[in-house]
């Protein structure tokens, strides 16, 4: 049973005041630092957002607490700490939209669920429209969203102008003709997501084992019985792998080839500015998206670099391309200075959509292929993966997110660009 915040106590406003008055001597580490046991019911490989969320939901919704999360570095040090923090559920296809809407609903209750302030801010996301054809496409997408219980709102150019007067509306090549808004979209404090899930999972008795790299799987007669790690062998009835970015590398230790390539995506933050951008804005004529953090920095990004990479850093042509997109959309950005930039490694799948499925090896389960949409999926991915691990059946929102869809010809290809990962 759960003892809320067993280690660190329950967080609340009152607690903050109490601690402030007593010299902050009552705060304790938010999770334990245990040595691995010999065996668990379930081992999650990967202590990122998805792995920790999986552990949290396994314990809280499926009553499985003999769980370890093993992480090669420190938790939250991978892609959950390297993304642009956007949440949304504005997908078109039936295989995707119910899942992402499920995830967005979980974001809305996340902080109460895990008793942690993740600064979930539903400041809205706005996809800009530049041509009549694009308006038709966004109208269709908005309708698909509404049919799946999400919110969507088609805006005229005047409505967009009222909300974002700083955009370059009368650009000769890319005039802004409207937008598709999802008001429930927004941003979240990404590190706090990892920490909140970790603290909650720990309070249920889940062991979070850091600096513990998976070095192999123990597989005999097509059955996985545990994970070889840098801290020795750990046995498990089931092993779930949630290491997006490194999926190709990790699953190759189980002898699997995946419909996935690893690519680098760069992200950028400007110096801190006064509040100017109300929500998340995406450019429809190029690939550029921007929001403003609570500290004032403009957080933005664009295309992936486009070649296989595990390097967590990109090259300059894409930096130039992203900044050109920004200048075309909102010329005022040219006055801001770039503060920092970095790269994260994406699992780019063959149709641009994720995979949450069993593998051909009994007891080995896979969660990956998130392309550059993994952050928004964190709660949904965790719940759905926990569901699969607990019940051996896919969750109702993830019945299409399977390995065999490529072989059967049931791709979930939002962009329709085919088996070319760097185009998704």
């Amino acid at each position, binding site marked *: 049973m759960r003892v809320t915040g067993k280690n660190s106590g329950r967080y609340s406003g009152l607690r903050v005041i109490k601690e402030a008055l007593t010299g902050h001597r009552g705060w304790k580490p938010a999770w334990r630092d245990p040595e691995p046991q010999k065996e668990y019911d379930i081992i999650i490989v990967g202590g990122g957002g998805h792995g920790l969320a999986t552990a949290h939901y396994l314990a809280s919704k499926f009553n499985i607490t003999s769980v370890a999360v093993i992480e090669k570095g420190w938790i939250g040090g991978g892609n959950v700490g390297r993304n642009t923090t956007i949440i949304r559920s504005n997908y078109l296809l039936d295989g995707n939209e119910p899942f992402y809407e499920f995830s967005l609903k979980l974001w809305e209750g996340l902080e109460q669920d895990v008793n942690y302030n993740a600064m979930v801010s539903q400041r809205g996301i706005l996809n800009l429209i530049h041509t009549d054809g694009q308006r038709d496409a966004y109208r269709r997408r908005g309708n698909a969203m509404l049919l799946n219980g999400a919110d969507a709102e088609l805006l005229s150019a005047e409505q967009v102008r009222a909300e974002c007067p700083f955009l370059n509306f009368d650009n000769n090549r890319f005039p802004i003709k409207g937008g598709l808004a999802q008001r429930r979209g927004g941003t979240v404090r990404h590190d706090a997501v990892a920490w909140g899930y970790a603290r909650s999972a720990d309070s249920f008795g889940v062991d979070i084992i850091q600096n513990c790299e998976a070095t192999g799987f123990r597989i005999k007669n097509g059955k996985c019985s545990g994970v070889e790690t840098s801290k020795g062998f750990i046995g498990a009835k089931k092993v779930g792998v949630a290491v997006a970015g*490194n*999926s*190709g*590398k990790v699953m*190759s230790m189980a002898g699997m*080839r*995946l*419909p*996935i*390539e*690893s690519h680098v995506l760069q992200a950028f933050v400007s110096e801190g500015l006064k509040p100017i951008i109300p929500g998340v804005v995406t450019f429809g004529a190029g690939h550029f998206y921007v929001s403003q953090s609570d500290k004032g920095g403009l957080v933005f990004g664009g295309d992936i670099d*486009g*070649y*296989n*990479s*595990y*390097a967590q850093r990109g*090259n300059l*042509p894409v930096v130039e391309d992203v900044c050109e997109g920004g200048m075309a959309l909102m010329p005022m950005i040219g006055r801001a200075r770039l503060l920092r930039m970095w790269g994260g490694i994406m699992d780019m799948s*063959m149709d641009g959509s994720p995979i949450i499925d069993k593998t051909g090896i009994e007891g080995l389960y896979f969660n990956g292929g998130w392309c550059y949409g993994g952050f928004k999926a964190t709660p949904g991915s965790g719940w759905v993966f926990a569901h699969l691990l607990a019940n051996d059946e896919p969750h109702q929102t993830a019945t299409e997110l399977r390995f065999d869809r*490529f*072989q059967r010809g049931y791709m979930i290809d939002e962009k329709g660009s085919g*088996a*070319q*990962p*760097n185009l998704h």
Partner: protein
Amino acid sequence: MIIHHPLLGPRDSAEFTYLGDANLIDRPDWQDKKAADKFYEYQYLRNNPAGEHQELWYHEAGDRSWLVVTRNTVTHEITKVELARDVARARGRSK
């Protein structure tokens, strides 16, 4: 990244478009009994190594040649560049 084109010398990678794993040269035989499975593997599955990787680059803004580039995916260091034509012929392809 600078790609040392075998004919044109050092060129900026921005002149190229990237296709992927150089195994895409080895298109399966469509008359093979297991052609459906082989085409599935050819089209969709990747080795995706962290380390040395052979890959196809197309010199779109240049001489339109296909190259096989051997590059390290961890450091981005390029160690070898060949014309894809030569690589394909060396693997027994006639055209």
